[in-house]
C-alpha cells in the first residue's frame, strides 16, 4: 500500500467512524461492573490462596 492510498484509506475510515449515522462505530467502554467482578474475584482468589498457604 503506497503512502497516497494509505492516507486516502485512513481518511475514509476516520470519516466513517466520526459520522453519526454510519454503521462503523468505536466500541463501548468496558462496563464498570466487569471491573468490579474481575478485581473482586482476584482479591477473593488471593485471599483463598494465602489462607491455604499459611493457615491450613
Amino acid at each position, binding site marked *: *500500500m503506497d*503512502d497516497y*492510498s*494509505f492516507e*486516502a*484509506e*485512513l481518511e*475514509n*475510515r*476516520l*470519516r*466513517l*467512524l*466520526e*459520522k*453519526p449515522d*454510519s*454503521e*462503523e*462505530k*468505536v*466500541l*463501548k*467502554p*468496558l*462496563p*464498570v461492573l*466487569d471491573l468490579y467482578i*474481575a*478485581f473482586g474475584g*482476584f482479591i477473593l*482468589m*488471593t485471599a483463598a*490462596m*494465602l489462607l*491455604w*498457604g499459611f493457615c491450613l
Partner: protein
Amino acid sequence: MSSASSDMTVVDGSDGTLNELPLLKRERIWGFWDYSSVNIGLAIATWAFLQGGAVAYYVGAKNAIITTVIGYGISALLVSLAPCLPSSRYGIEQFVSLRSVFGGNGARVLMITMSALLAAAWSSVLAIMFGHAIANVSNELFGTNIGDGRSVVSFLALGAIVLSWGILAWGPVSIEWVNKIVAPALVIVTIGMLALVFAHLSWSDLSSKAPLGPHHDSYTNFMLALELNIAGGFAWWPNVGNLARLTRSTRAAFWPNILGLFLASVVAAIVGAFAALALASEDPTLWMVPLGGAFMGVIALLFVGFANITSIVAQGYGSMIALKGGGGRLLRRVPWVVLAAAILAPAAVVVFFPATVYDNYGRFVSWGAIFLAPLCGVQITDFFVLRRQRLALRDLYLPDEESCYGFWGGYNPAAFIAIAAGALIYALLLDPVSYEPSSVFKYVTASAPAFVVAAALHFLLTLVFVRRFGKGGYDTKPAAQTLESPDVGGGVPLPVD
C-alpha cells in the same frame, strides 16, 4: 465493499489488520470464544515450562501454586486493561494507542526499541531451548554428549532462527499454526507431564521436594517466586493489544485474557514447576525422557523443540506487524522478507551467549518487567483515570505539530519520567543484574511498586505540568463524564457501538 462501509468507498487491497489503520466492523473477526482460543493457544507455549522451572528454583510445589496464581493474577488483570482495552475500543494498533501517552515520536521510539529488543530476547530464548531439545534427542538416540558443548547448542539454535525466518518470510501463518496444531498438542504434552509426575510421586512426596536453588530466607524465596510470576504476566504486554484489537466488543477483549493469559498460563507453569521439582532440573528439555521413557520422551522432546519454532514465528510476526503498523512511511516500504531478517538478526547473535538469557531465565524476565511494569502503570493511568477511556481518534494519526497528542516535539516527558522512576524503583528493590533483592523487596516485590510509582507519578506530572501547559488533549473532555457515557474523541464526537 462491505455493507458496513457502504456509504463510502474503501480503497481496494487495504487491510487494517496488517497496518495501523483503525479497524472497521468487518475486520473485527473475533468474538469471546475466538479470542479465547487464540489466547489459550499462545499461553500454553514452551515458555510456560521455562517459567515453571524458574519458579521451582525458589519454592516448593504448594508455594509454586500460590505464587503462580497470585502473580499471574496481578499482571494478567493489569495487561488485560492496557493495552487490550484501548486497542479494542478504537480498533487501533497498540503502539498507535501509545501516541496519546508518549506523543507520536515517543511512541515510535518505544515501538522500535521494544519490538527489536523483545523479539531478539524471546526468539533467542526459544531458539536455545530448541537447541537443547535437539541436543538431548541426539544424546538419547545416538549416545552423543552434546549437552556439554555449548557451541553445538548455539549452532542448533541458529538453525532454529534461520528456519523461523524462512517461515516468517513465507507468510503470516504462525498464529493459525499455533492454534490448530501446536497448541492442542502442547495441551496433551502438559496433561501427559502432569499425569506422569503423579504416576511417580504422590502429592505429599511432591510437596516435600525442596526448591532447586533457594535463597537462605524462605519468605524472600516466596516473594522472588511471586515476582517471577508477576513479571512473567507483564511479558504478555507486547503481544496481546494487537490481538484484542480484532475483537467485536470490549468484553470479548477483556475476559478471554482471564482464560488464556491467566488460567492456561497458570496451569502450564504449575505443571512445569512440578516437573522441575520432581526431576530436580529447571531445564524443560531434561524432563521429557525421564518422565516418558526413551520412546515417548524423545517424541515429546522433538515436539517441544519444534514448538519453539512456532513460538518464535508468532513472536516475530507480532513484532513485524507492530513495526509495519507503527513505523510510519519508512518501515511500511521495507519488504516483508527483509523486515523478518532484521527482526531475527539480533537473536542470531544472542544465541551464541546462552548464559545471558536461557540459563538466567529469571533475570531475563526481570529485564522485561523493569520496563513493562511501569509502562503498564502509565498506560492504565492515562487511559482509564486521566482520559476516562476516551481518545481523539483522528489526532492519533495527525502529525505531532497538528495533533493534540503532539506534546513537546512529539514527546511527553511526563510519561518518560514516570517510566524511568518506575524502572529505578524496580532496580533498587531487585538488582536486575545480580538478581539480589533489597531488604524491602520481601514486603513489596519489585514489579508492583514499579507499577504503582510510575502510575502515580504520571498522574501527578500530568495534572501539575502537562495539563497546565494545555498539552496532550487532557482538557478536551466533556463536562460530565462517566464510563458509560457516549464517547467524545478530543472534541470530535464518535458514535459508540
